[in-house]
């Protein structure tokens, strides 16, 4: 009977301090190398006139465009507008999706009532609702919040529901054996055991939210990163479009990373991770 788990032992053996910088970070360094090579190739393709920068832009042009947008201050307004849309749309989706998912997972009848709507809307690309949303909410902030909310709420809801529904029967038996009431069963077993699924839902929702921002703003808006890309694209300012793509990509990666860190914290909770 040892006190350390296998994971710890393995990590100990592999991660000795004697190993070189390269050996410890091989994957990351290889990735960086590949990106650097790609950038150089891209830049030189333009320098040597192999491609037309009007279509492809180039790393230096993108940096210059980005710097210009920071200097004239226009980018801050776009970022603030898109950020606000995201925060409100995503926040609303969490506030609505998590409780609804829990209730649908827990109460069979409640689930039966809402399931047709959830299934239909989850299966529909939410972008298809954009014309309706514009009719209902106009082209200002609220229409973007609505599309982000609709994009995000279903992955969150469905995953939370799955989490509640797939509670290990053994845990319910244990709780019952200790005399748990229905309410206690819910708070001490159903809620905590669905946390990992809930986090998965939040992470999936994130990707949908970013799509919502871009498409919503391209469809009809007066500010935001998506709007900036749309107008830049329409006037062949490829560099500025590229800046927008980079911002969206960076935001997506950063937010996903934050959720991954939170997910890892709860990894030991996952039922399928037992022993």
């Amino acid at each position: 009977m040892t006190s350390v788990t296998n994971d710890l032992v393995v990590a100990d053996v592999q991660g000795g301090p004697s190993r070189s910088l390269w050996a410890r970070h091989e994957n990351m360094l290889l990735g960086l190398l590949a990106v650097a090579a790609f950038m150089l190739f891209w830049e030189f393709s333009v320098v040597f006139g192999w491609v037309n920068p009007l279509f492809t832009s180039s790393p230096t042009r993108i940096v210059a465009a980005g710097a210009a947008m920071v200097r004239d201050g226009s980018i801050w307004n776009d970022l603030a507008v898109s950020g606000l849309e995201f925060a409100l749309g995503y926040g609303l989706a969490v506030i609505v999706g998590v409780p609804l998912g829990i209730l649908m997972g827990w109460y069979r009848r409640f689930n039966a009532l809402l399931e047709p709507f959830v299934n239909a809307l989850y299966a529909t690309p939410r972008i298809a609702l954009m014309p309706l949303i514009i009719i209902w909410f106009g082209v200002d902030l609220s229409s973007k919040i609505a599309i982000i909310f609709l994009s995000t709420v279903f992955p969150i809801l469905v995953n939370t529901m799955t989490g509640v529904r797939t509670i290990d029967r053994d845990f319910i038996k244990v709780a019952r054996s200790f005399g748990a009431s229905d309410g206690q069963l819910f708070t001490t077993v159903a809620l905590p055991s669905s946390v990992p699924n809930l986090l998965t839902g939040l992470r999936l929702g994130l990707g949908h939210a970013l799509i919502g921002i871009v498409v919503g703003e391209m469809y009809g808006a007066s500010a935001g990163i998506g709007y900036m890309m749309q107008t830049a694209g329409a006037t062949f300012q490829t560099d500025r479009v590229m800046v927008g793509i980079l911002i969206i990509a960076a935001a997506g990666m950063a937010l996903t990373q934050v959720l991954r860190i939170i997910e890892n914290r709860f990894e030991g909770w996952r039922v399928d991770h037992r022993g």
Partner: protein
Amino acid sequence: MKLCARGVRIDFWNERIKRNLRVLDCIDLDVREGELLAIVGPSGCGKSTFLGAVDGLVKTGAGDIRVDGVSVDKPGADRAMVFQQDSLFPWRTVMRNISYGLELQGRMARAEIRDRAASLVELVGLKGFGEHYPHELSGGMRQRVNIARALATDPKLLLLDEPFAALDAQTREFMQVELMKILARAKKTALFITHQIDEAVFLADRVAVFSARPARIKAIVDVDLPGQRTLESKLQPRFRDLQERIWRLIEEEAERTGLMTSTVGA
């Protein structure tokens, strides 16, 4: 008598054949104050179902189960179950798994619950592991937590449902000795279900042999081993005799119902 079961019958509805299946029939069983009674029987004979009924998780069709003279109809604080491995809550630390029953009861103050859990961590030999999560523990350690969790509410009767079935042979032997010590220290009456005949003989004061389904009590064997029991006791001729006698009884049942091939070595 700690536990007094009379004429217990349990039927389960089988959806496939659309019929009630009789699992237990006319079970009369007494567990004396302070003793450890083991139940063995052919696989699938309904031992666990009986234990579930004593715990109050399974409804009986007929008969009466009493603990200290009080009829059982739902789970209660006078009984606690040690489930098979992996029934620990993975989101609770060792300490908080052990506190679970007390938290549900809500009768003790937080600090009091902590003290009680801490003393149980020590009792089952896990000092220093109180803040660990179950996935950080070995199978044997998890079962110690499981036993401590059941002891926490200070039940009058401890029910153990094949608690060591999922452990490797070596750990199982250690845990058998550990359980004996823990039960002696905690002064508990216990009802124990196992597949391992040697485990039953080693731990129990008496062994009840269940027949094949629908289960009745085929025999009750007194385990009259002389002196203190240690792992060496398993080498005594008397131990072998008892083991063989119980094995014969189960074998008869298996042969009677054509289960023989599937129970060899079980």
